[in-house]
């Protein structure tokens, strides 16, 4: 085992998963370090659940290798892999009560009865379900079922815990609480979590590393702050948080031209006059008097969001989103003020020009009106 890979508990190398002509994962490579909280983030159909199922062993790749601690697990079936999964709809066994669900893995492994009792007890304590041992799982609330699912997986001391959108079925409040609980649990257990979600806020608040995926490819890997502040392309910028993405030209280092204005920025390393995507986060824009604005436009909509107002401003036909605590009125002519360090420059990508203008609905909104667009679940079933 070479030194570089020694801390990689799971490694995917050049994985391709294909169903007939549908490419689900396209030459994907990913390393997951020990004790890391990794989130696979992307819209439905991006291949994140497929990636999880590959690691679990429910699915074989068409090509590529999966390594656990540097060893190829091609011939290791799901039941022999040192990973456990928390399923999207929990998949608790309806024929067993809470105790027997949690004890299931240990019973299969023929652990002595006393040991099982002690460890189930510890787990019940960990997930705050003491006294629920004899309860049938169908009689539990969604949040309680969730905890049983966590306990049932974690009791087997897996090297890696795989979580497939485990919070998707919970109410907003409970989901927030479970986010911090899961994060705390990961630290306490000291194991690797691979967490799948389409919720960018969830990903940002829980992860050590976020893997942003789309169309079966990894778009960016990085820490939450990296991903948010330094998105690699228009897809990442648009998917993580809100972004205004404007066509621009990098005149030279630290000087960019867009909206027919030349502005200072902090990025460098581009070719002279290279066409680029300019990203400006809505919270980094200030609304000022037109005389003081770098660019000016007309307010077309104002939405109160609680903490701030979300204001859409039409600048020469491009619609900006601005988040600010100052109220504006529709049809006001205003100026936008942007600090140089709020301007982030990205290389052009296949996504350029398709997102980041608030004239339209999001892709997701369009997808749900498209009868040909399949959900990720149906794609996974096809792969099976």
């Amino acid at each position, binding site marked *: 085992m070479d030194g570089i890979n020694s801390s990689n508990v799971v490694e995917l190398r050049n994985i391709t998963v294909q169903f007939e002509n549908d490419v689900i994962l396209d030459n994907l490579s990913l390393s997951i370090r020990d004790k890391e909280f990794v989130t696979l983030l992307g819209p439905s159909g991006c291949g994140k659940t497929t990636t999880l199922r590959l690691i679990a062993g429910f699915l074989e790749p068409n090509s590529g290798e999966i390594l656990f601690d540097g060893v190829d697990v091609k011939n290791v079936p*799901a039941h022999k892999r040192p990973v456990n999964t928390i399923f999207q709809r929990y*998949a608790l066994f309806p024929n067993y009560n809470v105790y027997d669900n949690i004890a299931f893995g240990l019973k299969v492994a023929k652990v002595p009865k006393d040991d099982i009792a002690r460890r189930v007890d510890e787990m019940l304590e960990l997930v705050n379900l003491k006294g629920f041992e004899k309860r049938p799982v169908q009689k539990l609330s969604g949040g309680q079922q969730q905890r049983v699912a966590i306990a049932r997986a974690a009791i087997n001391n897996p090297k890696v815990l795989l979580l497939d959108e485990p919070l998707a079925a919970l109410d907003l409040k409970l989901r927030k609480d479970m986010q911090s609980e899961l994060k705390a649990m990961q630290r306490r257990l000291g194991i690797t979590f691979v967490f799948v979600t389409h919720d960018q806020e969830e990903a940002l608040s829980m992860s050590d590393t976020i893997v942003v995926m789309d169309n079966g490819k990894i778009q960016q890997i990085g820490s939450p702050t990296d991903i948010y502040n330094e998105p690699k392309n228009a897809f990442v910028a648009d998917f993580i948080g809100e972004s205004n993405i404007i066509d621009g030209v990098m005149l030279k280092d630290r000087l960019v031209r867009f909206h027919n204005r030349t502005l200072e920025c902090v990025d460098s390393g581009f070719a002279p006059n290279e066409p680029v995507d300019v990203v400006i986060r809505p919270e980094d824009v200030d609304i000022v008097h037109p005389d003081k604005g770098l660019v000016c436009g007309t307010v077309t909509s104002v939405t109160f969001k609680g903490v701030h107002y979300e204001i859409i401003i039409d600048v020469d036909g491009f619609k900006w989103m601005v988040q600010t605590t100052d109220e504006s009125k529709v049809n006001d002519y205003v100026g936008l003020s942007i600090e140089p360090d709020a301007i982030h420059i990205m290389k052009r990508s296949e996504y350029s020009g398709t997102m980041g203008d608030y004239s339209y609905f999001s892709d997701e909104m369009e997808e749900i009106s498209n009868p040909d667009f399949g959900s990720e679940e149906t794609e996974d079933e096809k792969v099976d």
Partner: protein
Amino acid sequence: MKKSTNALLNAPYAVWAAIFVVVPLFIVLIYAFTDGEGNFSFANILALKDYWYNFLLSLLYSLIATVITLLIAYPFAYALSKTAEKTQRIQMMLVMLPMWMNLLIRTYSWMNILDKNGVINQILTAMHLPTGEFLGTPGAVIFGMVYNYLPYMILPIYTVMAKMDPALIEAARDLGCNGFNVWRRLVLPLSMPGVISGITMVFVPSVSTFYISQKLGNGKIMLIGDTIERQMQMLNNYNLGAALSLVLMILILVSMFIMNRFADKNGEGGMIV
């Protein structure tokens, strides 16, 4: 308001059940405890002891038939539930197809096939192989039961298998179960309600059949159904026939009760009783 609506919806069946289920049961009871003149009598009950052999035979044959049907139906239903949806529809159609034909016609067909000069022996003769005597053997009767009642076993087992969430099976594999353990710890207990329904639906008609044993048994094998039919049709002894029917009903009731006990242990109720 809602209660009265339910009562109203329920009324037609309640009336139906009263006229065609409860009243006939009483008539059977009255016949069983009276003689030919309508006087109260224990004679029929006392005469039952002469028929213990037929009861035993019926129980034995139907038990064997039920076990064979289960052994055929269970793996078939399990495998079928794993195939593509289209295959499942076509296969289930093929399973149900013979049921669209009348039981009598099906059994007559089998008589023709199994007969001394029937299809099987004709083929054997054509191949210069020794022919056999099939009709009138216990094997033929049990075969008839299995053939006729197999769909009733497949259907309920297949239904529970098809409904089973595939994520449960993945969860079991994820928690360390190999193929056999997945079946033993998860699929088997979850499929028990279907198995219980199937056993009920095969055992009850098998234990009371008279037609299959009469035709395929060639009159040589007298099951309890044949005995009852003989009392009713040929000897016109409705009283003894009723007493035998009564015992058969009690026998079935007890069997169902035992089955359900067994089912409850697995945490899921069966059907009936």
